[in-house]
């Protein structure tokens, strides 16, 4: 008929020689399986880029429109906690990279150790985030019906702290409205980032357990590598969130 097809199986007896136990039936080799996983993971991260991208675009537009409001609202965030969290997250990226390396070199003990350390650092990050969120709730800085832009200053004045006043192009009434855009984006961005971290820690619990059970070796450590890619991506998102949210304008 048409389209000649030779049925030439390159290895006619697929089970004649021993396969790695992790090799799935529809792949021919471990390298093919691994390459598929790596590309699949990167395509997934591609979707994540565009997922967070939508928020970054919204942020950019409102930041240009309401720069003063963004600068003022950004000063309400604690640079100490933000900076600390950045360091924690970068540190967790290092431990994650080392966990993957330990898996590559067939070092079960240190794979587990580095993974546990990564999870701990992730939890530290989330704990700090809770402290920061609590502060926002306490100061009525969560957008919505209870949002109160001036509460923070009034509270500080009532406590006897000096309140500095910068010349602003917007009245407090305008700030009451427009700073809500900043905090809406702040909570959405950091909230989604934190959600990704929680998912990451959950993933790592499973991976650690698998590593503990000795499911990985130098030839098959794809799950460790994949969760590593995911964790580093979450780190990258924070690398952008930190200057955009905490450092809008600090020099005046």
């Amino acid at each position, binding site marked *: 008929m048409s*389209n*000649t097809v030779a049925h030439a*199986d*390159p290895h006619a007896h697929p089970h004649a020689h021993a396969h790695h136990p992790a090799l799935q*039936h529809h792949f021919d080799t471990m390298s093919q399986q691994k390459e598929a996983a790596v590309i699949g993971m990167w395509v997934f991260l591609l979707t994540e880029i565009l997922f967070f991208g939508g928020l970054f675009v919204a942020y950019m537009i409102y930041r240009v429109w309401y720069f003063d409001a963004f600068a003022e609202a950004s000063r309400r965030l604690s640079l100490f906690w933000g900076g600390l969290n950045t360091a924690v997250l970068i540190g967790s990226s290092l431990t994650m990279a080392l966990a993957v390396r330990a898996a590559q070199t067939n070092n079960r003990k240190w794979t587990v150790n580095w993974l546990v350390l990564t999870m701990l650092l992730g939890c530290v990050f989330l704990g700090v985030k809770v402290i920061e969120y609590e502060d926002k709730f306490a100061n009525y800085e969560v957008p919505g019906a209870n949002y109160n832009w001036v509460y923070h200053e009034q509270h500080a004045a009532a406590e006897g702290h000096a309140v500095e006043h910068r010349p602003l192009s917007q009245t407090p009434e305008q700030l009451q409205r427009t700073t809500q855009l900043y905090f809406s984006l702040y909570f959405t961005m950091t909230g989604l980032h934190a959600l990704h971290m929680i998912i990451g820690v959950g993933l790592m619990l499973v991976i650690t357990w698998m590593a503990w059970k000795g499911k990985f070796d130098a030839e098959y450590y794809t799950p460790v590598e994949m969760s590593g890619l995911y964790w580093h991506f979450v780190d990258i998102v924070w690398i952008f969130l930190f200057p955009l949210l905490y450092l809008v304008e600090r020099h005046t």
Partner: protein
Amino acid sequence: MLDTLKIPERHYLNNGHGLASWLLTKDHKRIAIMYLISISVMFLLGGLFAMFIRLELATPQGDFVNADTYNKFFTLHGVIMVFFFLIPSIPAVLGNFLIPPMIGAKDLAFPRINLLSLYIYWLGGVFTLAAMVMGGVDTGWTFYTPYSATATNTHVIPTALGIFIAGFSSILTGLNFIVTIHRMRAPGMTWFRLPLFVWAHYATSLVQVLGTPVIAITIVMLFVENAFGFGIFDPARGGDPVLFQHLFWFYSHPAVYIMILPALGVISELISTFSKKMIFGYSFVAFSSLAIAVFGFIVWAHHMFVAGMSTYSAMVFSFLSFSVAIPSAVKVFNWTATLYKGAISFETPMLYAYGFMGLFLIGGLTGLFLATLGMDIHLHDTYFVVAHFHYIMVGGAIMGYLGGLHFWWPKMTGRMYSEFFSRIAAILVFVGFNLTFFPQFVVGYLGMPRRYHSYPDEMQVLNVMSSAGASVLGLGYALPVIYLLYSLKKGAVAGPNPFAASGLEWHTQSPPLTENFIEVPEVVSEPYEYEHAVAKESHLV
């Protein structure tokens, strides 16, 4: 010939029985069948709402339902048809079933993720259907803010969550296809030996993977506004509702290409098979799919010309919108050139292909009217727009889907349907479709706005034509359900290649084995080689 054909002893359908063997399967073919059933249910539901819409519009007065109910009808019609039928239709059913055998693979790269995508689709469907049962939603399928965020008291949150969840199903399908096409091809199956169906799905997958996350984040922003009182798009707090539209259409315009690109791939296969010729300009047809996918991302704001965006950017987007016509026209011209001097036959799938070409042409050309900035000011939000996109989505995507379903049905089930009734159905669909939607171009041009449940008396004649056509169309869609189901038991045995087609999927038994091929095939020839084709082996007299 016929008597010698038998259904093979072992195939994917009888490899395991019982519900669990289906719900826990990793076989892409079984997952495709479950998708087929799921989207058919959704299609029925969406069609039901369409019927209510046409029933209401048969008379100028709003006398069947009140305005609020009507709003819910067209919203649910749109949401179900777009997100739960059209977007998964060809990729998740035909693509899922056919891409592995077409490229000579045993399965998709990630079979478990494939099954997961089906469950996610079901979960999304549950949310949206729950919203429907609780009382529906009336924002239109576009969910424009601020209405959807602050004004409406209908169930935006569960509906939007359903779409958010279903989006991940779409992403996972696209991801699976991309990796599969890159890494699972049989020896000798080079990129330029791939069937054009696979090229079209590769382009579709790119759109799914790149566009869907943006609608997801848009829905998240809408969600926090609805659920927590945040104000990202709230004009009262300085937000910009037009930003919502930008983000929404960044996905939802390319989403049209998620629906139409696979149909274009199906038609390429049909035209070549039923004219027994190599497709004219293979590489042009292949790359035009990619071009459509990429151009689709730079034209979105033509949906927003009257929404308050800047006139200057409207000009830019208007010009760019024309660019999509180029690769689309390349395809139509190449199909026509393929037909030239071909050994053309008129089996049912080919009837759908012919219908597709005409309707896609009309849909595409009226798209150019709408892309023209000045013209769009007049036509925006009229029935002209409704007619235009139904020519693409129904006349294009669904014709392609039905054509493909009829073409590969013998491959999927091993049995032939009634050629007589299927031709009747194809003709009914074509006639019914034109009768439904062509009058809408006219009423739209006369100024009838969309999304109203009443209209001036002068427009009744055209609207009655449209409603009558919808009944014919409904019949045309109901008929295949009957004869296809009938064929499962009583249909003639199809054999491995009833249409004498050239693709790799026809080189295995029908229905195929769970692992598709007995041994890994090696491809040694170019695609669509019909020079040595023997006389057509039709089972028809």
